[in-house]
């Protein structure tokens, strides 16, 4: 067990190192990074500015509460952009036969696919999310107790897992159909529109679907409801924020199973 963890970690770390080296191989990349860091903060603050001036209370949520919800959602979005953006490209991996090489190596294909690319540009999104989140914490007088910090950390990790699992599942459809781009675009839009606003502004059946079928509501809405003491319409026993990491893990396992099922249908590409 310990041996296995050591093995997978050493492989993952080497993949990360190669990802970093690859992205820094081109000088333009380094230059753009120098500009990127101030830009990261700039975008976040600019976005905040617009939000402060344009957001009206929505569905009974005040601006600080909306910013909190948005912040949690955007943080998990940013982290997903860093660690599992390659889910979006399963289609082109399938079309170009890129899984061939992974299938030839004595280690899980899903694992290789997951660690094969780390998108450092995604850090821009993380910074934007973090800025908005911290600012909203100040507005709602968030108490930085150990319990709350752990809760937030678990919610964000769970959110990242739910997001990337949903993309894995939907984009893996390409194993059967060769195409999944339109599905992905639809999903991406849907996720953006549903994690940034309170579910209570949508009809009940939409919330029902986004809770029990595609559990997007657990990424930011239910945790924010719990922490802010808002009414989330659907009531769960125990603290709701416990559900986010659990659902995250369950979704992740389902995603791996679905991916592996698809891989059996994989047809490579002619050479």
């Amino acid at each position, binding site marked *: 067990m310990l041996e296995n963890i050591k*093995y997978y970690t*050493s*492989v993952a770390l*080497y*993949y990360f190192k*190669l990802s970093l*080296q*690859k992205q820094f*191989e*081109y000088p333009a990349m380094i230059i753009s990074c120098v500009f990127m860091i101030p830009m990261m903060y700039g975008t976040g603050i600019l976005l905040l500015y617009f939000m402060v001036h344009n957001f009206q209370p929505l569905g009974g949520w005040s601006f600080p509460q909306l910013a909190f919800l948005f912040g949690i959602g955007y943080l998990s979005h940013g982290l997903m952009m860093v660690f599992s953006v390659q889910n979006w490209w399963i289609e082109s991996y399938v079309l170009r036969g890129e*899984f*061939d*090489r992974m*299938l*030839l*190596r*004595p*280690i*899980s294909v899903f694992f290789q696919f997951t660690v094969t690319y780390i998108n450092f540009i995604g850090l821009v999104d993380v910074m934007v999310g973090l800025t908005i989140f911290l600012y909203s914490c100040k507005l709602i007088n968030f108490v930085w107790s150990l319990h709350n910090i752990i809760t937030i950390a678990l919610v964000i990790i769970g959110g990242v897992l739910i997001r990337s699992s949903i993309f894995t599942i939907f984009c893996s459809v390409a194993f059967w159909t060769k195409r999944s781009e339109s599905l992905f675009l639809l999903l991406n839009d849907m996720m953006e529109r549903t994690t940034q606003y309170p579910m209570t502004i949508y009809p009940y059946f939409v919330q029902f679907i986004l809770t029990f079928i595609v559990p997007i509501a657990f990424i930011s809405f239910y945790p924010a409801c719990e922490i802010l003491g808002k009414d989330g319409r659907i009531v769960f026993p125990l603290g709701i924020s416990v559900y986010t990491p659990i659902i995250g893990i369950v979704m992740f396992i389902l995603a791996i199973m679905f991916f592996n099922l698809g891989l*059996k249908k*994989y*047809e*490579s590409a*002619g*050479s």
Partner: protein
Amino acid sequence: MAFLEVENLVKEFIVTKKKEGLRGAVSSLFHPEKFKVRAVDDISFNIEQGEIVGFIGPNGAGKSTTVKMMTGILHPTMGSVKINGISPHKNRKAIVGKLGVVFGQRTQLYWDLRLGETFELLKRIYRIDDKMYKDNIKMLDEVLNITEIIDTPVRQLSLGQRMRGDLAAAMLHSPTMLFLDEPTIGLDIEAKHSIRNFIKQINERCGTTVILTTHDLGDVEQLCKRLIVINHGKIVEDGPLNSIIERMAPHRYLVVELASPHQNLFHPYAEVVKTETLRVWFKFDKSRIAATELISDLSKTYPIRDVSVKEPDIEDMIREIYKKPVIS
């Protein structure tokens, strides 16, 4: 039990036929015309450890599909593959660690990074310990001069150098079986020579079984003791190269140069197929008369200045095999 067993292997692909024009596109959307294509049609063979087997066939014959099924990339529609008794489809991770695979048209090397980085990654993935890694790099340096290019970014390597890098990457974990899909494609004579030398060397030194698909008959002549010819998804020939030549082309040609013009040349076991003023082509069957016998017979009766024996052209022979209709 053979080292690699392929039994009744079949691979079918479903192809959708597209109709012409916008109307066709709409009608294809509602009534897609689908039909099955058998890329590999019920093939079986065994390969023993230490063999070098050439796998040849025209484009689209099913070579690559077969190689992809043997290595576990593609799942067969029917039939089975067993390497060392283990199926790469049911137990992928247990077997692929013992295989090395090189696709000539596609590199596994990290394009932007120095060659050594890919090696280091593979070292971790295949759990190669330091000693084995060092020994293998040393061995690969002897046959492929790998240290000469190990610090060069892959994108700056020539095609021949890149192929050397790919072969080395496939051999780092000392696989017992090496699959090479068109390893000499697009290479110059010198690079081809060094690749062929490498294949011979690792087969002799490490006992590695090699399966090679190629369009280059030079590869086949110089490397393969056994040849499998596949066409339209079926095996049309399987055996030692020599015996295939014997069977396909039992005839040789004897070209005789006469000292003076002569009419009506004749021999009971050879047939005159062509005559130029002083040159005569005799076609004879090796099993009926030996070349030496024929020469001595002829020289007794005719004024002969020079003779030469023409071996059959492998390329012509292979073309004949490709043209043969497949009986199904």
